[in-house]
């Protein structure tokens, strides 16, 4: 199994003849970067100037804040890879061929910038190259696993059967587990007779690219090495032709307690498998002032409700809810009734997530509806995160200022601007004490605040809700929940 901080196995494994072709391409590409190029080049169809390779950055550091990348090269403008949170990947993005350096930076909530890892030098981005940088390990000593592949579209010709194949790869970036075997099979296949996609993949390692046929019924399972003891099961999922999927083993902080899970990294980012079955841990908050208590259902209202008697302005206890993907039927009625159905919609219920579902708006104003907050209970080494939800039916959009004591709102931009009804936002804060002020959006009309909060680093949730008063109407209140609860 490959283990390298800077690994170029895919290129180096190529035959000499193809490398020569690459060299020709590199030379012409580099000249094109000078303004040259022109006709007569023997580039494959689709590989049009300007010549570009691809780069992405994946954040697998389990206690990391959001990190950003900055790519720079001679004669190429600095380009940002903004805001990659834990478990996320930047989109696989094209950049002009050049020799880059990549600064991976943490921009803290006060704007100070620190290097996450030493500057990654000499990234020779060529037209055929897809360079992925996986940041992993503890925040105190993170490392970079670089994986260079050949671009999926490099050299593809119109008459190739490129739609009949896809490529996959395994990357292990979980600090919470040792080596694993990874099986990619048809759904329900017997593992005892299956051939693993990769065996013994350990932290900071990756498997070679493997070409597979597209299918709508794949299943990914991760086992202890040499066994069929399944520790992760993707459920059924599809892989389309002419796509590349990287199965990234990463730490998990979901309610299942499972120490790791697998994300699927594609050209668009990192995603979870839609067919995962571990339950969601959900709680319900009722902020509809003209319905003092509600019941909520994920099935027909002839069945028992999942949430019962949810009182106004209260966020209830968590309960396991079967994962169901992006569109799970969701109905809400006044407690003790089955009609009228006040909310009849679908919501996302992803697997193994902590979720808070808030009901907001007003029946009388026909604005009632749900809003979803995915709760991040993961401890971040550097900062706390405060969630603010706008669930007051009496006001429109608000600006939220979270400022150190003594800083006036007139001097600064809002921490959260134009937070509309049934929306929420997270603010990253350094540990400390702050004042929270809520104004009408775009004005200095103070609706509520200043109210003082203190936050610290850890796995606590900090939640504020901008709400109506009990029974509805103003004054607008800032209610505190979780670690901010009075």
């Amino acid at each position, binding site marked *: 199994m490959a283990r390298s901080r800077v690994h170029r196995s895919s*290129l*180096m494994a190529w035959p*000499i003849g193809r*490398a*020569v072709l*690459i*060299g020709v391409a*590199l*030379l012409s*590409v*580099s*000249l094109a*970067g*000078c303004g040259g190029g022109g006709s007569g080049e023997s580039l494959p169809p689709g590989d049009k100037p300007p010549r570009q390779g691809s780069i992405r950055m994946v954040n697998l550091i389990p206690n990391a804040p959001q990190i950003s990348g*900055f790519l*720079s*090269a*001679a*004669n190429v403008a*600095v380009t940002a890879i903004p805001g990659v949170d834990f478990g996320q990947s930047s989109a696989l993005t094209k950049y002009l061929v*050049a*020799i880059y*350096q990549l*600064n991976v*930076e943490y921009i803290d909530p*006060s*704007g*100070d*910038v620190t*290097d996450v890892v030493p*500057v990654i*030098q*000499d990234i*020779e981005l*060529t037209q055929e190259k897809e360079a992925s940088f996986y940041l992993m390990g503890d925040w105190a000593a993170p490392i970079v696993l670089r994986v260079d592949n050949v671009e999926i579209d490099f050299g593809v010709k119109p008459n190739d059967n490129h739609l009949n194949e896809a490529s996959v790869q395994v990357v292990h970036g979980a600090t919470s587990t040792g080596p694993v075997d990874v099986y990619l099979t048809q759904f329900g296949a017997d593992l005892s007779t299956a051939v693993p996609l990769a065996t013994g993949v350990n932290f900071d390692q990756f498997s070679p690219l493997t070409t597979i046929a597209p299918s709508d019924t794949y299943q990914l399972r991760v086992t202890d090495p040499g066994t069929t003891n399944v520790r992760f099961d993707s459920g059924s999922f599809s892989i389309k032709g002419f796509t590349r999927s990287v199965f990234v083993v990463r730490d998990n902080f979901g309610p299942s307690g499972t120490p790791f899970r697998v994300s699927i990294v594609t050209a668009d980012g990192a995603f979870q498998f839609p067919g995962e079955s571990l339950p969601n841990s959900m709680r319900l908050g009722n902020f509809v002032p003209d319905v003092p208590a509600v019941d909520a259902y994920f099935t027909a209202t002839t069945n028992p409700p999942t949430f019962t008697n949810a009182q106004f302005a209260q966020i209830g206890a968590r309960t396991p809810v079967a994962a169901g993907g992006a569109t799970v039927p969701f109905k809400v009625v006044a407690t003790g009734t089955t009609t009228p159905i006040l909310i009849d919609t679908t919501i996302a219920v992803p697997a193994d997530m902590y979720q808070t579902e808030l009901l907001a708006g007003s029946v009388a104003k026909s604005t009632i509806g749900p809003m979803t907050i995915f709760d991040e209970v993961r401890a971040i080494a550097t900062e706390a995160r405060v969630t603010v939800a706008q669930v007051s039916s*009496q*006001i429109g959009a608000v600006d939220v200022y979270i400022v*150190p*004591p*003594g*800083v*006036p709102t*007139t*001097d600064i931009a809002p921490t959260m601007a134009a937070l509309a009804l049934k929306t929420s936002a997270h603010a990253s804060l350094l540990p400390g004490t702050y*004042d929270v002020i809520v104004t*009408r959006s775009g*004005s*200095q*009309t*103070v*609706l*509520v605040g*200043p*109210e*003082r909060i203190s936050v610290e680093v850890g796995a606590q949730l900090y939640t504020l809700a901008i709400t109506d008063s009990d029974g509805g*109407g*103003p*004054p*607008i209140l800032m209610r505190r929940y979780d670690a901010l609860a*009075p």
Partner: protein
Amino acid sequence: MTLVRRLVLCLALVSLAACGGGSGGGSNKVKTPTTFGKFRLINALVDSPPLTVKLGTVVQGTVSFSQSTKLLTEGATNYQLNVQYTTPGGTVKTVVDNRALTIAVNEQITFVLLGTLASVSVVELDENAPDIAAGDSEVRFVQSVAGGSYDFYLTGAGVDITTVGPTATVNALVVSDSMTVPSGANQRLRVTAAGDKTVLYDSGAFTLDDQARRLFLLGDYFGPGGDGVRAVEIDDHSATTFLAEDLPAALSIANEVVDLAGLDGYLHGIAGSPDFANVALDAISAAQTIPIGNTDVALTTAGTPGHVVVPDASFVLGTGETQTLVVAGVDSAGNVTTRPVTTPVRPIAGVAQVRVIDASPAAPAVDFFAVATGALPAAGKAQLTLLVLQASGVALLDPGSYDLYFTTGGTTSVVTGPQPITVAAGGIYSVLLADQAGGGSPVRIVVAD
């Protein structure tokens, strides 16, 4: 690596070098460009409104009294610095006029405006980027209080200042030299008159960040308690107050419970004499100095402790804060609400500050207008918009006479008004929107000061 591959890479590198050189092996980090310097402006003009800071033609931000802009990254070149403010009537006033300024590479320039709007003293600090050893910080003391020299003691929290000399003695409208001090937790800033040991200001314990450059700004203090001066810490982002500073808070009560003649307020449970006795309808009590922290106020009908109007209005008061607890509603209807609203305490030269509070349960969302006497509200000219019950804001007015109006929010449809008012420069006023006596509409404008 094969010979062929080496050749391939060499070709690529050579061709890139032909474009102007590669960056392989270089150390030009993205985040530290070498063609930039830093700039910030500190506003210590004791009577100033928020100031607008412009470098060249670019507005860099607004900076209030006792505040600082961020330490801004700017291109290393020559600039013209302009500092201005706009009066409520729309006249642009210049505080710093086209002052030439050169920002050199890696230089940090801090402009400090000291004195008053009528007599501005500008101090320019030119420093290189910090190069501070671990375990140390670099500090300066800015003394913006007129007419006196002060001793600054920056020590460990437990140090008896009678046993040590001052860290710095700084005259009025002067900035000390930069000095290196130990960083870390349990630092404490105390300020005395020069040559005296009586502490006029005490920051309490705080943490001085390691390898950081900080300024401590001493300014006039208008809040409760204290000895007329207050210090703030200026980092690279803003000026912040000290959380543990030795200053109390202050609280007053505004009574707009429109079916009661008066309210009593209790800070320590409903027993004995009220802390705020018989606050009349439409009145704001005198502010009382109280300890900071969690504050619980119980409110009863004046003289009748058994008639509880609000059992427990609970909120937090910070150091040096002055708040008014607005009590509004109709007791017999059971809709009395409370909210602590910040009270302006510092006069601004040439400007009146009108604090506007919506204390009317009966009113819709409203806009607030202060128009010339005899004029009517005009669309788009509201001083404050979309106030709802217990919302508030501060309108700045030029001295003079006005008619006050509240209109239906977003319109010029008058809900109540005109209410004449005459305001003076430097004055601070409170205007409330309240239900009629007994409750409901038509609502009223109450000028409480």
